[in-house]
């Protein structure tokens, strides 16, 4: 057995003897993926489901139009979206001050009369200041209702005037004969409306497309969405960096406690030692990453795509990480310095490279910085493989930069260890 193999075997055996830290850094990405995935899992419909929006309704009008508006919330689709509570103004304001609802919709006095007279009126939406999204949804819903109701009021303008004047009369004073022409007119309009509404004159169909692969004109086919496969690559690469960094930092410990000097008394060359260390770091990374991916498949049903391509991506990414931290450790003076700088570097990579939030959500300027991180290329590579493509870009960038780092690490570490 060669000396290099012996060192590698010894390194891995030492890790396996005290595996807690490695296991912990393996558990963290799985736990974080599970937590975030369960919270934001869109379910079978592939549409992110918001929890029901708590909406308070204050009806100052109590007329026909307000009843129509309130009735709209009884439709099943809207019922699923909003949790409506009818309250009086004072109670509503009190609840809003306590932040007990996302929004409060106030229907003003004389709302029905104003609509009947074709006068402009205003709905009021009181928004919860501590919430960021749901009050906005309630506001847009109110705006859509306002457009619809404005339209209905204008289509049935004549009929509404009659209803308004009839509502002020006693039942005995209403003449059916006088009402008949208006009912006939309404009937004609309702029949005419059918040609616009059944089927609806204008409908909207939405489709989501992924960005087309470079060099091809075709858009990628959307696959069934698994939120866990969207989150896990980012989490995995972040904690893989921590694992490999901790392993490569051992060089500093061994330098400090004289182990390396003692090893140099043997026929072992510094070149062999460094190569063994880089290879051990790479091997540990590949083992941990492969294990995490298998667990990810079993726990979250992630389909990683072509196994060979995934293995190659894991292999080049781990090589990059081992080479990068090997190089950094050549420039750090001691383990404290290595510890002080490595974690910030990893977290910086994670923030800009897409581990902490999706790449496309990172502000443009910061996204540019992401190109210099292994996280960005690993996540992009995973997504491309899952989409059935070959990640040429990530392979190329990670291999070339990894080789450069490994070269620098070899030269600089040899100098440092021989010093």
């Amino acid at each position, binding site marked *: 057995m060669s000396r290099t193999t012996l060192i590698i075997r010894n390194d891995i055996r030492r890790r396996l003897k*005290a595996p807690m*830290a490695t296991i*912990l*850094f393996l558990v*963290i990405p799985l*736990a*974080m993926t599970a*937590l975030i995935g*369960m919270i934001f899992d869109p379910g079978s419909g592939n549409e992110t489901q*918001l*929890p029901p929006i708590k909406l308070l309704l204050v009806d100052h009008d109590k007329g026909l139009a307000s009843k129509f508006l309130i009735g709209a919330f009884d439709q099943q689709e809207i019922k699923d979206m909003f949790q409506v509570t009818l309250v009086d103004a004072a109670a509503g*304001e009190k609840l809003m*001050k306590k932040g007990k609802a996302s929004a409060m919709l106030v229907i003003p006095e004389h709302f029905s009369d104003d609509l009947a007279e*074709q006068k402009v009126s*205003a*709905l*009021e939406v*009181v*928004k919860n*200041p*501590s*919430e*960021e*999204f749901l009050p906005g949804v309630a*506001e*847009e819903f109110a*705006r*859509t209702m306002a*457009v*619809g*109701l*404005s339209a209905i*009021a*204008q289509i049935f303008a004549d009929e509404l005037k009659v209803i308004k004047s009839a509502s002020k009369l006693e039942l005995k004073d209403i003449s059916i004969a006088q009402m008949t022409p208006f009912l006939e007119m309404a009937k004609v*309009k309702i029949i*005419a409306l059918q*040609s*616009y*509404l059944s089927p609806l*004159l*204008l*409908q*909207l*169909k*939405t*489709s*989501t*497309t*992924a*960005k087309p692969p470079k060099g091809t004109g075709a858009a990628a086919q959307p696959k069934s969405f698994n939120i866990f496969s969207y989150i896990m690559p980012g989490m995995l690469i972040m904690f893989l960096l*921590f694992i490999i960094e901790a392993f490569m930092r051992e060089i500093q410990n061994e330098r400090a406690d004289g182990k390396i000097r003692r090893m140099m008394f043997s026929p072992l060359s510094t070149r062999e030692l460094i190569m063994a260390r880089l290879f051990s770091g790479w091997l540990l990374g590949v083992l941990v990453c492969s294990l995490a991916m298998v667990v990810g498949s079993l726990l979250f049903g992630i389909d990683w795509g072509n196994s060979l391509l995934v293995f190659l991506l894991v292999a080049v990414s781990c090589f990059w990480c081992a080479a990068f931290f090997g190089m950094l450790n050549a420039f750090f003076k001691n383990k404290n310095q290595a510890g*002080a*700088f490595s*974690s*910030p570097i990893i977290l*910086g990579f994670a923030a800009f490279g897409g581990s902490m*939030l999706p790449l*496309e959500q990172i*502000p*443009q300027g910061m996204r540019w910085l992401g190109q210099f991180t292994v996280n960005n290329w690993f996540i992009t590579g995973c997504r491309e493989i899952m989409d059935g493509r070959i990640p040429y870009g990530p392979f190329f960038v990670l291999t070339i930069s990894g080789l450069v780092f490994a070269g620098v690490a070899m030269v600089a570490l040899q100098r440092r260890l021989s010093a």
Partner: protein
Amino acid sequence: MKKIWHIGFLDLKLTVKDKAFFFWMLAFPLVFILIFGNLFQGNKTDAKAALTVLNRDQGKWGAYFVEKLKAPGIELAVETEEPKEYFRMLVIPTDFSAKIERRAAQTLQLKKDSAASLQAGAVAETKIAQAMVKLIAELIIYGNQRDIKAFFNARSPYRDLIQVRTRLPEGTITKVPSGFDHVIPGILVQFVMMMVLIYGGISVMEDRKHRVLARILYSSASFAELFGGKFLGRVLMGLLQSAILITAGLLFFHLNLGSIWLSGLNILVFTIAMAALSIFVGSVLKKEELIVGVSVLTANVFAALGGCWWPAEIVPPAFRALGMASPAYWAMDVFHQVIFFGKGFAAVWPNFLVLLGFTAVFMALALRFFKIEE
């Protein structure tokens, strides 16, 4: 008391001297604030719900429909050829006018890029739906009997009879909160947790390992003073971290903290709980890597459940209930009450009580496991 202060202050001094101090305390949280603050402000390129309209219509109705789409909060770009890049694109087909004039039903296509903002996409879809309702309403009001070709000569028959006004509840803040107002308290709570747990935990473990704790006890300091000093040191770390972030927030992001005293008290009570937890973590774990791992996991889980990462309102009710098990939830709730609703001590004292309950549990564990030597 003097000895407690001395030990605590020395711990703080050692922390400040650490090479990564500047990064952990200021640079990294600021990067977080910038990323997440801008995220909630909206991506600059997609902030106003960008909508590309590919108008292929050969008549007048396509352009007329585009006019209906114009609304506040939506950024329209009208194209006649399909652009290479877009966030979302509405396609008006070549026979749009012909079908309208025949009153034949038709479906418009809205293509969305999977990378585009979901929130902006929802706004754009709502505006399209509103424009469709308006156009259909105009056609109905215009009537079936009249010559449709004469439609454009008549004045637009549709009017917005109902307007929508928005406001915030009376007695709360008067200015709509910015993304940074939402993000900074969350990041502050998360970094106090991470910082105090990691630095506090590791230094307890190293002091024990290198017999620093034992040497302190050779002096006239008692066990209680030693423990108190270590505890105070961690509280000071958390307070320093908070002070730095709040100053940066006030200077660069116009952070609104509501009542500064109540927000300060909230930070103090929360930091006390974390200081006790850090001594416990540093007492039971023997390796630096393990302390970092456990601290990162604990801080992240607490932060995620406690509402530091995303708005609590979009979290399913079950997870929101689960969040109450996280001290971060109670601290975040105080920030919300004080910053957004202008509440006073009477509204938030139950939260302080819960945080002190957490402190009591963590302190009992810390005292039980705190060791002077390995």
